[in-house]
């Protein structure tokens, strides 16, 4: 089968297309996802192809969007809703935490809904269009959270998310949408939820990361490779449930751990990874566990500020050298 080159956003669109084609119970809705094709064009052409019945626009009502998706999912559909920016999900957080997250536990009725949410900064979006909120989701029982870094994973994880009987928060990175390309098959396979992927091997240290920071971490690893150090990069892909085995094996192989993410530091998902390692791989550690993250401040607008706000290749490689030389 010939492979074609797809961007991250193309892959998401391709995934939605296949899901709509193969599964009559899939519906796609959200603000401007219909004829317009979504703020980022992830749904472009889908309404035309599958009808206004299966792909449609909604009022600006995040709580009703999420709540109705829960109701549909409980009746056997597989709704995929788009929240225009993950930042806006905070207006209806109870529908995720209290409703979607608890329904199966309380009632045994599965809630196979998927919430697509574009995340992250690096494009001058300012404080309300650039947030990384993954740990708000990861901290919620009953919710799964995925965060692909490559087109093939974006599509493959979307398949798994939509077919999963649980609510899945499908985080997408806006910075990667058109920057990351891959040659992939027309349809491809599902990527299982809960399985990390080693993106680079190495024994001097390991970076645990996901989303846009996979790419920055790989660059940093390449950079210090020139200085004779080989760093493993683990792309978690799923944040909840995360791949404990892969993480612990990586720690065993390297003995030095760095966590990198674009979200705020205090109480972020990186803390969870560090805590896991500090609890379950303590005996394997030769150095402190380092977190490279955004600092605890709103995402600034000005490019001069955002440049230092987001973890950069330089910051990561510098910290890697310190870690390896500890």
């Amino acid at each position, binding site marked *: 089968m010939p492979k074609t080159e797809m961007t991250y956003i193309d892959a998401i669109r391709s995934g939605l297309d296949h899901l709509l084609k193969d599964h009559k119970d899939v519906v796609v809705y959200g603000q401007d996802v219909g004829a317009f094709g979504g703020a980022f064009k992830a749904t472009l052409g889908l309404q035309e192809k599958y009808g206004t019945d299966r792909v449609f626009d909604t009022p600006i009502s995040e709580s009703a969007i999420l709540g109705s998706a829960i109701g549909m999912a409980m009746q056997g*559909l597989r709704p995929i809703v788009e929240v225009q920016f993950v930042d806006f999900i905070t207006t209806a957080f109870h529908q995720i935490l209290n409703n979607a997250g608890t329904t199966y536990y309380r009632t045994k009725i599965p809630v196979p809904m998927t919430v697509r949410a574009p995340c992250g900064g690096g494009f001058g979006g300012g404080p309300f269009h650039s947030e990384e909120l993954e740990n708000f989701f990861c901290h919620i029982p009953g919710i799964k959270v995925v965060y692909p870094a490559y087109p093939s994973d974006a599509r493959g994880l979307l398949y798994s998310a939509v077919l999963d009987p649980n609510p899945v928060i499908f985080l997408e990175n806006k910075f990667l949408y058109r920057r990351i390309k891959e040659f992939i098959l027309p349809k491809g396979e599902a990527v299982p939820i809960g399985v990390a992927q080693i993106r680079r091997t190495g024994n001097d240290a390991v970076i645990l990361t996901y989303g846009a920071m996979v790419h920055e971490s790989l660059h940093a690893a390449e950079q210090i490779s020139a200085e004779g150090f080989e760093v493993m990069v683990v792309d978690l892909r799923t944040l909840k449930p995360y791949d404990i085995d892969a993480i612990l094996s990586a720690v065993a192989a390297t003995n030095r751990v760095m966590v990198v993410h674009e979200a705020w530091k205090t109480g972020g998902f990186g803390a969870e990874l560090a805590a896991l390692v500090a609890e379950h791989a303590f005996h394997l550690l030769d150095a402190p566990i380092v977190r490279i993250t955004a600092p605890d401040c709103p995402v600034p607008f000005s490019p001069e500020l955002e440049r230092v706000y987001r973890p950069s290749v330089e910051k990561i490689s510098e910290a890697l050298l310190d870690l390896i030389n500890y």
Partner: protein
Amino acid sequence: MNSQATKKIKTNTSVNIWLRILKTMFLGRLTEERLVRLYHQGKIFGGVYTGIGQEAIGAVSAHIGTPDDLYAPAIRNVTVHLGRGTKVLDVFRQYLGRVTGPTRGRDGNVHYGEMDKGVFAMVSHMGAMLSVLVGGVMARRRLGKSTMGFAYIGDGASSTGDFHEALNFASVFDVPILFMIENNHYAYSTPKEFQYRCQSLVEKACGYGMEGLEVDGNDVIKLYDQIKIILEKIRKNNRPVLLVCDTMRMRGHGEHDDASYVPKELLLKYKEKDPIHLLKKHLLNNDFACEQDLKKLEKECLDEINQSYKKALSEPMPSPDDLLEGVYAED
């Protein structure tokens, strides 16, 4: 229903449904009165929240729907559950945290529902279930059923953003739902004057492009006829409707609350309008039933309640070992 037993009893097509509704109301009232006593005896873990005095709205609407219809009851709608077929036994199991109950002890008191009866289990967050119902009805209709929805909302809950989003959503997508605001004058301790400033909550209907009606929520006979007419419209037009039902919360918000902030006169006024009392009077005055029948019915209900409570008590709590079972659904 044994109303044929005595000679003088008349009947019309509605009598049977009225009697079914009455039975549901008896069951609701008597179950909750038992729960109240149990609470004050310290035998209930957590709180007790009743719909005493408000049974008519739930009972009428539960009996009027079809098996395909969906319901999103709120705190005070025990008669929705019972009317849709939930067993009193399951109500006790729920309150007593039994593993045999509808939430297997994971959730408590009023937070239950049985999907096979078309009833969603509420979350506490006021208004949050309304859009869940909207989605549920949309889904069932997409799956080929002629489902419509019944939603129950407090006067207090009408102030939530979720109320607004859900009603608007249902209207925009032509989702046939009867949104019933049970205006029982209070939201916890807060009187309705501090909840909204329109004259009547029915004035919110036009803002959603919906028809809106106000009814007496305690008069089963009238309510039944009114809802029947509205439902025909809803099913025909596939449009949601807002129905504001006047009623009164006759006890505290929960049994921990003595509701001393409620004026006695208000309670007295609504005591006169007790829905069970009104329906019984109607049945008796029109010779649709005799005292004996009603006594018998009440007795049947009480028996069921007694047995159910005993049985529920005898059943096991969930095993601590199962704490983590079913946080996620398996494929």
